[in-house]
C-alpha cells in the first residue's frame, strides 16, 4: 500500500528536495506544508504514515508541531523525522525527547534520508 508522507518545511527549495528524495522510493506519496500552520490544516484531511519536519519555521516551530502530534489522540502514532542544521544540536535533542523517531542533518545525502525513512517505518 502507498505510504503517505507529510513534509513540513518553509524553504521551498528544501521541501522540493525532500519530496524528490522520498518519491524516488517506490510506494511513497508526499504532501507538502510550507509552514507549521499548513501542517495543522493538512493533518485532519487524510491519513499520514510519516511526518518529516523542519524545526525553525516562522509560525509554529517543529518542536511545537511534534508536541502537538504526540499529544493528540488521533495523530499520536504518526512517526516524525526532524530535519535540522548542523548548529542546532540542542533543538534536535529536544525533538527526540518530545517523541520524534529520528533526525537528519542538513545538508544530507539522498540515500541517508531514504534509509532513515525506511528504518522509521520499520521496513
Amino acid at each position, binding site marked *: 500500500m502507498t505510504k503517505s508522507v507529510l513534509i513540513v518545511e518553509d524553504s521551498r527549495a528544501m521541501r522540493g528536495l525532500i519530496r524528490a528524495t522520498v518519491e524516488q522510493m517506490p510506494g511513497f506519496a508526499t504532501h507538502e506544508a510550507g509552514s507549521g500552520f499548513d501542517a495543522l490544516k493538512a493533518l485532519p484531511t487524510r491519513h499520514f504514515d510519516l511526518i518529516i519536519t523542519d524545526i525553525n519555521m516562522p509560525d509554529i516551530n517543529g518542536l511545537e508541531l511534534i*508536541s502537538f502530534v504526540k499529544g493528540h489522540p488521533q495523530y499520536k502514532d504518526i512517526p516524525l523525522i526532524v530535519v535540522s542544521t548542523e548548529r542546532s544540536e540542542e533543538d534536535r535533542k529536544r525533538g527526540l525527547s518530545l517523541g520524534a523517531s529520528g533526525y537528519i542533518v542538513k545538508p544530507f545525502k539522498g540515500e541517508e534520508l531514504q534509509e532513515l525513512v525506511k528504518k522509521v517505518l520499520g521496513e
Partner: protein
Amino acid sequence: MSRDRAPVPTAPAGLKENGLAGRKDEKSKGEFLAEAEDILDDLNQHLIQMEEMVEAGSVDPDAVNAIFRGVHSLKGLSGMFGFEGVSGLSHRLESLLDAMRLGKIDITREATSVIFAALDRLKELSEEISRTGSEHADTSDVTAMIDSLVSSRQASGKKSLIDELAIDPAMVSVLTEYEEHRLKENVKARNSIFIVKARFDLATFDKDLTVLNDRLKGMGEIVSTLPSSGMSPEEGIEFNMLLGSKEPMEKLAAEVEGPRVSVQEIKYKADEKKAEAAAPSLRSLSKTVRVDISRLDHLMNIVGELVLSKNMISQLSKDLRGLQGFTGLAVDLHKASRTFERKLGELQEGVIEVRMVPIGQIFTRLTQAVRKYAGDVGKDIDLDMLGEDTELDKLMVEDMSDPLMHLIRNALDHGIEPPAERLRRGKPEKGLIRLDAYPKGNRVVISVEDDGAGIDYEKVRRIAVDKGLVQESEMLTRREMLDLIFLPGFSTSEKVSEVSGRGVGMDVVKKNVSKLSGMIDIDTEIGKGTTFTITLPITLAIIKALIVEVSTETFCVPLSSVLESLMIKRDRIATIEKREVVSIRGETLPLLWLDRVFGLPKSEEGESIYVVVVGVAERRLGLVVDRLVGQQEIVIKSIGEKLKNIPGLAGATELGDNEVVLVLDVESLIDEATQRRV
C-alpha cells in the same frame, strides 16, 4: 529565485544537474551581484541600527535576527552560484550571529566592528567578482577575528532564570533554543510573562491568529505559539502563546480578551527578588532626547542645500567627461561625486528618519474620541486598527489627526446604521470601522473603511442641486457625483448632529490632505460600506520631482502628485463642453496645455503629445508637455513677492547646472482647469 540554500553539493544524483552550482555565465553573475548587493546594503543598514542600539544599551532581538537572516540568504545565494569565498565567509559570520542571537556571545561594540569588517570584505569580494568574474581576496584575517570571538562564547547557563517562573515545564520543553533564550531575556528584564489562550476554527485559525498576533506584538514579545492537542477537529484548535510584556495584566486583558481569547499571568516564584533587582541608581533610565521639530527642520534645510550642491557637482562631473584631455580627472570626480551622493543619501535618510513617528500615535488618540462619539450617537462599533507601526513625518502625523477624526465621525454619522436597522439588513448589530495604514513605495496609504450603508449617488446629486452647487441638467459621472461631497458647504446629513454634518467636514478633509500633497479616493457600495483612501508622501522636506520641458521652459512637477505619464495620439483628444479631454481606461481626463497657461511660444505640433497625469485629493488632470526630461530630488524655495500670486507655481528650485526652474503647484493648476469649466 529562492534565497534558501539547497544543499547542492550532496544532493541526490537526479537533482544535482538541476542545481545552479558552477553556473558562472555573465547573466547569472549579474543576477548574483544584483541580489548580493541588495543584501549587503540591507545588512549594512541593519548593522548601523544595531550599533546604535548597542550604544543605547538595549538591542532589539529583531535587529539581530534581521542580520542573521540576511547573512543566511547571502550564504545560500553564493553557495548556489558557487562563489566559495563569499559563501565561506558568510557561513562563518552566520555562526557568529547565531551565537549572538542565542545570547551565547554578548552583542558589544567589538562584535559589531568585527561584523562590519566582515561585511566590508564581502563587499570587496563581490566587487572583485564583478570586475574579474572570480574571487581571490584573502579572508583569513577576518575569519580569524570571527573565530576568536566565537571561541570566547559562554555556555548558555542561564537555565536558572526560567526556574524563577512558575511555568509548566511542558511549555518550556517545546521551546527552541532561540525561543528559550528570548524567554530568559524577558525574565532578565523582569517583564511580566503571560499565557494567552486562543481557540479558533480549524478553517480560519491562521487568519485569526495573525490578527491576534498583531495586537499582541503591540503589547510585547511573542516568545512562542504552541498548538494544543486533545481537541477534535470539530472543536477547532487551541493555541497557547507565551508573551513577555511590560504591560499590566489588566491592560493586556482589555486589549485581547474575548469569547475565544483568555489571558493568564505566569507568576515569578519569588517576587521579592524584584526589589533586589532594582538597585538604586542615579543614572537616567531614558536614552532618548527630546528635540524641537524646528531644529530638525533646520537640519533638513541644510541637507536640502547639500542636495543642490550635489546636483551641481554631478552635473560638473558629467560636463567634464565630455571634454577631451580630462579623462582621469573626470573619472575621479565621478567617483568622488558618487560617494558624496551615497553619504548624502544616508544623511538625508537619517534626518528624515528622526522626523518619523509611527502613525499609531494618533490612532490611539482617535480610539478614545471615537468610543465616546459612538456612545453619543447611540451606535455600537468595533474600531479595528492595522499598521500602527507605519511611519510618517511628525508634522504630517499631527496634520492628519483632524481629517481622520472627521472621516471616522462621518462614518459613524452617515455610514454605520443604527443597530436595529443593521439587524433588519442582516448585518451584525455592531458596526465595524477599520483604520489601516501601510507604506506603498515612497508614500503612505491610510484608509478608513466602514461596513455601513454606503453613499447614495443620487441623493448626493439631489442635495448638490438643491444647494445650487450643480445644475439640474448637468450630466455627471458616478465619480463626479461622489466628488460633490468634497465641495465647501456640502452636507448630506438630513438632520444636523452634534458630531458631524455641520457641512464643514469633507471639504476640510480634502484641504488638509491636499496641503500635504496627498490624494483622497472614495470607494463605496450601497448597503455594503464606504472606504476613504488617503495617499500621502512620507515627508515634504525634500521631494522628488519630474522634470518636464514645455516650449522654451523647464518645469518641475512634484512626483507625489504624478500618477502616470502617457504618450497620446492627437486624434484621441475630444472636446466636451469646450474642455479638451482624453478618455483613459474609461475615465475622462481633462487636459491643460502648459504653454497656453504660462503664455509661452506655441510648441511644435507633432502627431502625439505627452500627458503627465496629476492628481490632488480626488481630482485628476492631464498636463500637456513637450518632453519628459527625468526625475530629480529638489528642495522647493519660495519665489519673490512679485511672482508669489501667479497661480500654478509653488516655488522655484535649482537644478545641477545652476539653472533656476519653476516648480508647478498642481493643486492650483487643477483649480484653474476646473474654474474654466464653470
